[in-house]
């Protein structure tokens, strides 16, 4: 304890002296010609990369563009496709399964892992436009629709249920776990670490709940799903 206190005090003193020396160095000019010898060389310091990719049914996208000098925020908010599946014919009590694969595409390992943050759900009309007579028809239950979309997320890499958090397999879709309740439970840890080149697989099961009525026809529930890979 005493030794540390001395050292800390010494460090502060040394720092103050250092600043003084630097200041003096900047102002002193030696007026004497001297011989010199010089060897030309370079030093290279290379940073690693930490990049995330996501593959869903639509395709694969990266957290940053695949071009020199393009990494800035390393956030890609323009990935296309729905991580909840792309079906347009969902009916009550029939589940829809989608898969999402997240890969550390960078050169360095992630020590802090991968997380999923889901946002609030919003519902809107999504009529079946190809109908000859009812191209505009959609249900009136936009207020309650998000709460009738049951969802589970299973991590196929760890064989654990991400949502609802369960040690093993996910439970069957039910009204206990919906897009509304999922937003409240977010964020979710998908991996505590993720080595370079490693990936995490997700199986996302969605289902229109048995309590859905005709008023829930032709609607779309949308929620943000943000995946973050930390250093």
């Amino acid at each position, binding site marked *: 304890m005493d030794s540390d206190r001395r050292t800390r005090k010494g460090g502060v003193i040394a720092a103050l002296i*250092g600043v003084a020396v630097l200041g003096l160095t900047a102002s002193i000019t030696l007026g004497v010609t001297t011989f010199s010898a010089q060897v030309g060389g370079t030093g290279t310091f290379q940073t690693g990369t930490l990049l995330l990719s996501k593959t869903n049914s639509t395709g694969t996208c990266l957290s940053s563009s695949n071009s020199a000098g393009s990494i800035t925020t390393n956030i890609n908010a323009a990935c296309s496709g729905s991580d909840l599946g792309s079906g347009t014919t969902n009916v009550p009590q029939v589940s829809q399964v989608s898969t999402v694969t997240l890969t550390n595409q960078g050169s360095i390992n992630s020590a802090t892992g991968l997380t999923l943050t889901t946002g609030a759900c919003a519902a809107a009309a999504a009529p079946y436009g190809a109908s000859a007579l009812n191209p505009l028809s959609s249900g009136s239950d936009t207020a309650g629709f998000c709460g009738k979309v049951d969802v589970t997320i299973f991590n196929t890499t760890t064989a654990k249920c991400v949502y609802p958090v369960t040690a093993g397999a996910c439970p069957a879709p039910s009204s206990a776990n919906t897009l509304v309740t999922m937003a409240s439970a977010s964020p979710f840890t998908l991996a505590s670490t993720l080595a370079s080149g490693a990936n995490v697989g997700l199986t996302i099961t969605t289902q*229109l709940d048995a309590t859905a009525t005709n008023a829930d026809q032709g609607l779309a529930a949308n929620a943000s799903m943000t995946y973050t890979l930390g250093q």
Partner: protein
Amino acid sequence: MRRMRRRLARGNPLVSLLLGSFSLLGVIALLSGSLTVYGGQFSGQIAGSGTFRSGTQLLSDTIGGTNCLSSPNSNAGIASNHATCTTYPLSTAVGSASTTTLGSQGSVAPTSASVATGGTCGVQQFADTSATGSNTGLPLGGATFGATGPSSFTDSPRSVAFDGSTGWGETLSSLVMPANYTLMAWIKPSALNGVILGATSTQSNVAAANNDRMLWIDAAGRLDFGNDVTTLRTTAASALTSGTWYFVVATKSTTTGMTTYINGVAKNSVASAGAKATLNYNGFWHLGWGGAVGSAFSNLPTTDYFAGDIADAAVFPTALTAAAVTGLYGQTTQAAFSAQVVADAPTSYWALQDTGTSLYSGAIANVAANGGGTNFRDSSNNPGTNAGTGAGGLGVDLSGPIGDTATTMNGTTGWIQTAVGTPTAFYASPGPQSFSIAAWFKATTSGSIMGFTNLQSNAAPGTWDRHMWLDAAGHVAFGVYPNAVFEVNSSATTGTNYADGNWHFAVATVAPVSATVGTVLLYVDGSLVAGSVGNETITGSDPAQVYGGWWHLGWSNANNGWTDGPTSGYWGGSLGQIAVFPSVLSAANVASLHGASSALAYLSAVTGGVATSNAYWPLDEGAQPASPACTYIAVTIQAGSACIYPIATGACPSVPSSNWLSMSSSIPTALPALKFTTAVSGAVPAAAVGLHVSVPWTVTGGASGFSSQLSHNSGYVLL
């Protein structure tokens, strides 16, 4: 790290100086919020989204070029997904066909669809909305609901259009014709001819012993009022014109005589003794018709039928005052007008404001129900002539097996007698020796599913066997009589109580092994439950008794003689899809029959697909409607290449007499066009001719929790 730095600093003052400098910079960076620069945190992020879309299961149909959609074509418009259509699937002309084209308008095709009568069959009516409300009117012939009402009302009034040649309305109550009275109606004549409202001493539109108390329009367009033998004609200046609404009123008082009003203003009156006289008789009021032609009145029309629209017809038991008439005419809405009429206490008030959806199913004079009874068709193709005749307490179970309807039996009187017992190529007598019987059953109590006796009745037979029943414990049993009582019982392998209110499928097979030995097997719900072990192999002169006889459905004599016989010879529950095969079905055959998921599939299976039956009674005939008039109309429904009512492969048969307007059938999910064809069933009583027989129809679709429905309530078949 800190320890290393201390070591370096202790050993080298310059190093210590430099490290101290960096430490200070670190402190400065921390204070200035630049930690990320020096902390070196990298991260990658993908901000995506998930969208879950529900499908739409929407249905449309098109009749006569008019579309009907199960849901409005608008955002947030789907709520019940149930629409009431203005069209009707049956042609008005009996004997004609009408086609309904179906369409799936959603992203999800229906996984099930059906067509059914959606309510009680009856005849259209002119409801009496007076305080007593007891003198219902019935439209006949060319009388059409839903025409536009008086133009002076602002609340979308309606009226009934009369065609001037066949359309009229009879009333059901025979009344003592009043001495003081008022006749009233709103009219819009399309021809200057015919009777608006009148009384005769008969309910029908034929010549009667007495006829007066009538209002008519003569050829000059003048309104005439006949009472007893006196005619009161409105002034020439007040002649009516076609196509204009008028409020016409006629009052008769034994003290003041007769007065006529047009649009609230008196147009003529007479106070003679004749005008005050009363013709006494019991009679009926008629709308749009009266016995004027050939009568003793003056200025007669050339037809008794009114041509044009009539609304708000009423008869009052008093002569309304001029003020009351003016007060009525001054109403500006139909609602207010109706309220005032009721307040003025009419004997009868036929507002004629509905669209024909209000039906009458009660008794009609001289119209008894069709006595033909329900004929239970034999749909086997070999040759399919062993039809059944229903007796006693029978009904319809709309929740039959394999998506079909079934027949209910009351357990005490209801049963079905089959027609053929004499030897034919297909119904050998003596009774079948190598055969199988199959039936779907549902009950909560013991009873007889079917049986064979030597009598074509349910009288006590001399010989009886080949019986299938549920015993007192709910076990399925089957018995034959190879010179001794023999039965197989599901209790041999299972204690299951099949009298559980659910549908079950039972099959019994009898296979002669030799002239004296046979094997009897019993299957329930596709699985062998009895006959698989030794004591079910029987020995006798024949596996089944040798005698000629008839099959009985829902009745047997098994409650006499068998150890585990049923508690009743009748069946209290539902039966459907009963078939007799002149062959021994294999276990695989039985499983295939049990697996048939629709009535059409089962029909195909029992007519050669799995085995060829020589009798097959689907028992899915509709119930004879309670309304007597409805029992004279039958219908078939062709759905593409299949007939779904009655269920048959290929074209529908000519309309069977038992295809009542009380039914439910599945529609193939490909949604083929439906062709409805009606026919007269039986001899229509004269008093029923011209009645408007109507029943609501519904077409439904469904897909796992979503459903769509189209209702058709506005239409009729002219009897």
